Each structure stands twice: as C-alpha cells, then as structure tokens.
C-alpha cells in the first residue's frame, strides 16, 4: 500500500512541475472563469457579491388565489434584492420586453390557472390544466434560470398542496367525518391553505453571506465549478497518458523489475491521477474563494462532492487510457472528451433549456452530476442533499475503473 502512495505522490509532483500541463490544469480554468465573470458583469463593481435586481415582468391574467400568491412571492421582501419584478397586463408586451433584453424573463400566469389546480366550491374536480408560461431571455441564461427555478419551486409546493388535499379528503370521507357533498369545499380549502404556504415560506433557499447582504445566486458559483470540472477531464486524461509515457520512457519497465507488482504500479498511477485531480479542484476552489469571495457552500459538502467528482472523472481517464494505443492518442481523445463533456455537462451553458434527450445524455458525464451538486451547494444545500450526485459519481467511477482494469490487463498496458 505504501508503494501505491509513493507512486501516486511522485506523479502528483511530476504533474505540478509540468508547466504545459499546469496551463491547462490551473491557468486555463482560472482565466476562463475570470473572463466569464467579466462577461456576466460579476466584477462590475456594484459591491454586491452576486446577481441582484434581476428584471422580471409578471403578467397575472389569473387573478385567483394561486396566481396572486405567485405574484406576491416574486415581490416578497425575501426576494427583494434578487428580483426587480414589474407587473404588466399585456403578455405580448411582456414578451417584447424580454425580446428587447429589458428583462431576464417574463412570467405569464394565464386566466384559469388557479381553477385548474383547486376546484371551485360546487365543482367536483379542478378544471382542465392551464400551463403557466416562463418566457426566458436566451442571452441571460443564468438569471433567466434563477427565475425559472423560483417559479418551479413555487409550483412544486402548489402540487404538494393539491395532492395533500386529495389525500386528506379521501381519508375524511373514509372515516365518515365529512359528507360527500362537502368534499369539494373541504378539498378546496385544504389545497388552497397548503399551496399558499409557498407564499410565506418559499422552498427556494438563497445564500446570504451576512445578515444585511442581499440574498443572491452568484453566477461564478455556476461557472467556476463548471470550468473546473471540464478541465478536470483534461487532468485525468493527462494522468492516464503518463502510464503509456512511462512505458515508452523506460521508467515503467524499471518499476517492474523492482520488487513492485504491476497491481501496485497501476494502483499508484490511478492514485496519482486522483491526487492531481483533487489538488486541482481544491486549488481552483481556494483561489476563487480568496480572490473573488466566491462562496461554494457547505464546506463538508464541497469536500465530499469534489472527491466523488474526481472518482467519476478518474474512471473516464482510465477508460480512455485503456482504449488508446499511444500517449498521443490519449492527448487527442482526452481533449475531445474534455470539450464534449464540457458542452454536454453544462460547463459552458446551462443544460436546463436543452431537449430531454440532451439532459439524459449529459448524465454520462461527471460534469453534469458535479454541477448538479455544486448548484445544490450554491443554493444553500448541504451534504445531506448531495446523495444522488455523489452516488452517481462514485458508481460511474467504480464501473468505468473496473472496465478499464479488465482492458488494461488484457492489453498488458501496466506490464512490460
């Protein structure tokens, strides 16, 4: 075991002494993050540490309890610094404001929206489903995404209320506590009460750095992990490349004539890639925290998520190594995978607006799962909320590593 550690530690040192690799491991993601920070106005000196005053237009054609509650939520003191809502009457005008880049999104609540969820007294059931429209500004994906997330969370709460009411009414009827003719009225009351709980306690959790600083979602909290995860793929591919390079340079055969088994050598190489990936992520996280005041969220969650993301990425790195014939091939495949996974996993643009098949395909990448996790943390979640991304990343790493080991053994890559 000690030799596995020694080989891994040696590889970590070599990685951080390779200036060309350092450019891609640390400098490139850092500079890109800074660049995108400027593009998104993150550094244009408002003094705020994140996004604020997102322009959003609201059209409430519903006028019912839920429609009004959503408008009240968007105008609530809790979201006062994050959102700058304007209420209009004309949906076309609202869409035009978005098209003219005067707003990040328009929230259009159609007539009959409340009635489609809560049955009016005297009706046995709710009306036909009426869909709420969010008209997003494609040039402001992050802020439009924030508006969408807030509305999604509100609707989830409403849905919880609606289903809860059905359950309550069914149970009350079953126990004979209410008469069938009262069921509709009771159901409407319960549904409205539960659904409207969303107004008072939005399930959106927003990060506040101090008591008097505005609740905010920092775009860097999305960009920085996105880019770090993308360049993590370079690191793991580059690490895999060293296995073939050492073979060509003669240091691998030399290791294999020392009292070191090929399993120890392979384990050491994998451990080295893991260490390098972890070091890369923590350096980038530390630098963005110190230099930009970026809050990554719950520290324990960040640590565990980083470790899991690197495990997932190392799995891919080893698979690329197992499939490539030369170090040059690993460079080419690794660079291609880095870019494809970057796009697919949402490192450049949020995949929220992508078609379903794209979102499903993105789940093969550590980038997508990692970003999911970092977004949860940035929105105030903790380690307990990271179960799904962490499990997915670990499973990805273990499965890919097992496949890679079979291929590596079959091809004798870790042997002379």
């Amino acid at each position, binding site marked *: 075991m*000690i*030799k596995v550690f*020694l080989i891994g530690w*040696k590889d970590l*040192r*070599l990685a951080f*002494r*390779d200036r060309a690799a350092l450019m891609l491991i640390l400098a490139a993601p850092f500079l890109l993050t800074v660049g995108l920070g400027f593009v998104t106005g993150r550094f244009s000196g408002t003094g705020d540490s994140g996004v604020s005053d997102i322009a959003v237009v609201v059209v409430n054609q519903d006028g019912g309890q839920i429609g009004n509650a959503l408008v009240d939520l968007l105008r609530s003191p809790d979201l006062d610094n994050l959102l700058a809502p304007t209420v209009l009457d004309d949906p076309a005008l609202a869409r035009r404001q978005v098209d003219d880049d005067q707003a990040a999104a328009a929230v259009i609540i159609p007539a009959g929206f409340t009635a489609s969820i809560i049955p009016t007294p005297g009706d046995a059931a709710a009306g036909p489903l009426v869909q709420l429209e969010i008209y997003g500004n494609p040039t402001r994906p992050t802020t439009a995404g924030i508006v969408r997330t807030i509305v999604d969370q509100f609707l989830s709460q409403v849905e919880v209320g609606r289903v809860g009411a059905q359950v309550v009414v069914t149970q009350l009827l079953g126990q004979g506590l209410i008469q069938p003719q009262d069921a509709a009225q009771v159901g409407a009351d319960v549904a409205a009460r539960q659904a409207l709980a969303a107004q008072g306690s939005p399930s959106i959790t927003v990060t506040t750095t101090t008591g008097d600083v505005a609740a905010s979602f920092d775009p860097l909290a999305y960009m920085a992990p996105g880019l770090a995860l993308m360049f993590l793929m370079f690191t793991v591919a580059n690490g895999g490349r060293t296995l073939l390079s050492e073979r060509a*340079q*003669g*240091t691998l*055969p*030399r*290791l*294999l*004539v*020392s*009292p*070191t*088994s090929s399993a120890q050598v392979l384990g050491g190489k994998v451990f080295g890639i893991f260490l390098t990936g972890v070091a890369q992520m923590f350096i980038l996280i530390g630098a963005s925290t110190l230099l930009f005041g970026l809050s990554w969220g719950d520290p324990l969650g960040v640590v565990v998520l980083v470790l899991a993301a690197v495990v997932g990425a190392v799995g891919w790195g080893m698979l690329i190594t197992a499939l490539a014939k030369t170090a040059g091939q690993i460079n080419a495949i690794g660079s291609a995978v880095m870019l494809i996974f970057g796009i697919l996993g949402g490192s450049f643009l949020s995949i929220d607006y992508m078609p379903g098949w794209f979102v499903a395909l993105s789940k093969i990448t550590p980038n997508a799962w990692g970003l999911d996790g970092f977004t949860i943390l940035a929105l105030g979640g903790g380690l307990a909320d990271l179960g799904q991304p962490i499990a997915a990343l670990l499973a990805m790493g273990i499965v890919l590593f097992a496949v890679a080991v079979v291929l590596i053994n079959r091809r004798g890559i870790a042997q*002379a």
Partner: protein
Amino acid sequence: MPTILEVHNLVKKYGDFAAVNDISFDIQEGEIFSLLGPNGAGKTTTISVLSTLYTPTAGDAVVGGHSVSKEPMAVRRLIGVVPQDLAIYDELTARENLSFWGQMYGLSGRALKLRIDEVLGQIGLSDKAGQRIKTYSGGMKRRVNIGVGLLHRPRLLFMDEPTVGIDPQSRRAILDSVKDLNKQGMTVLYTTHYMEEAQELSDRVGIIDHGELIALGTQAELTRQVGENDTLILHAAEGDDVAALAAAVRTLPDVLRAEAADHTVTIIAPEAEEILAPAVTKANDIGVKIHSVEIREPNLEAVFLHLTGRALRD
C-alpha cells in the same frame, strides 16, 4: 566462489523469431561478466528475461537460488538493473529520483538518506543533487541512471550498454565506477558492443550473435581461438569501395580473413606489418584512399570476426 547466476537453455521467442536461442552460462559471485555482441544480437532481451521483465519461452535462470520464472519477486530483491535507455524522471532532482527509487526497493528513513548521500558521492553528483535531471548533461544523466541501480546494494548488477551515446570523459568515469563497484564485491553482468570495454572490464566474456552464445571464456581462452594472429584495420575514405578492397586483400598470401564494414577493412594475418604494404598497394590499385591504419594484437574483435565472418560493428 559461489555461483550467483545460472542460465539454463534460455529461450525467448517473439512469434517464430528467437531473440534469445538456447543460451546457457553462469556467473560467479564477485565476477564481471560481459555479454559482447553487435546491436540486435539479443543482449538486451537476455537481460530483460534475467531481470524478470519478460518471462522466458523455454529454459530458466536462477539468481541466488531463485528461479526468474517462478520467484520473480525474490529475484528482484537481489538484482539491480541499469537499463540501456535512461529510466529516470527528468522533472525530479537527482536526490528526488534516488529517493523514489530507493523507496521502491524498500529503503526508507535515515538509512535511505545516508545511502543516497553515499551513491551521490559515488557517481560524483553530490554538489548537483538538488538540480532537476532535465538540466543535466547526457553523461550526468547516465550516472544518475547507474546510481539508481546501485541504491539497494544489489548482489548482482545488470548493466545494459551503459556507455552508449555519451562523451569519452563520462564513458571513462562509468568504466572506472564499474571496476570500483566490482572491487567492493559487487557482481556485474555487463553488455556491450564495444570490444574495448569488454576487454578492459571482464573476467569472462560471452560472445552473443543472433540470439546464440557462440563463445564463452576468459579473454585469453577466447583469443586463443584465433591463435596468435594480428588484426590489421584499414580506414578508408567515405564512399570508397571497401568491399572490393577486402576482396583484393584476400588474394594476398598469409591473409587469413579480410572483411569490410562501414569504411574499414579488417584483416586477420599472422604478421600485420608484413601485410600492410601489399594491402595499401592493392588499395591504390583499385582507387581506395587509406586514411589511417591500426594494428592490434589478438583481441575479441578478431575472435568475433573469426567466429562470424563479420566485424563487431556490423
């Protein structure tokens, strides 16, 4: 002297090609044994099998009582290997390289530190130990490459053409260090295609060609095979027809062999001085310009020529 290495009918094949073909020899503890042969003769493959890097196709070898095919880990603890190509990390310093490789052989702590200092002194790099290998000259890198092989005080050191591609000064230093190591009791298996190195270093020499051991013995025993004949080497100008000159020289009386290689003609004759004048005349006759002449007493080059009909540098 006890036997440290026994090689029994060793074969290593790649498909139908036998890189090592049924060779047998042994090495006594404290000996310098050279495997002498041209490039591609099978020297490196032999060392690779003996050092457990490759498994033999047939036969076996025993190092310090352990079979290379059945107990490779035990063999690895007894041997040190200095590969032909540099096998060290350019981005690490000499000290860091020695430390890493020492740990791979189980050294640690103060014992490792002391041993590193000792080896750095041995290879003459104590004052440059903190510099990265990439800043070193070719000769210095070679010395570190050797130092790595010595760290754990192996009972048997394999050195595979350690002087290839380096300057004469570094070459001299390496040959001297091999002799010093041997004086300290280390057994060395040294491969080379330089006849002079084998002659200078070896207690015994095995001559290998096309994967087969074609001669084995002390230098005196081997040179006896070509009798008391001299070797006359004529160095011609580039582009001159040395093959024609060799053919012409063979017609002279008392010439036992004459072979052309590169820009030279190597002639075996009982008295080289007597052949020199008529050989130069032949060269003039066919338009070959002789640049220089070398006369050697009976040597391993002559033995190789005698056994294979080819010069060692072929």
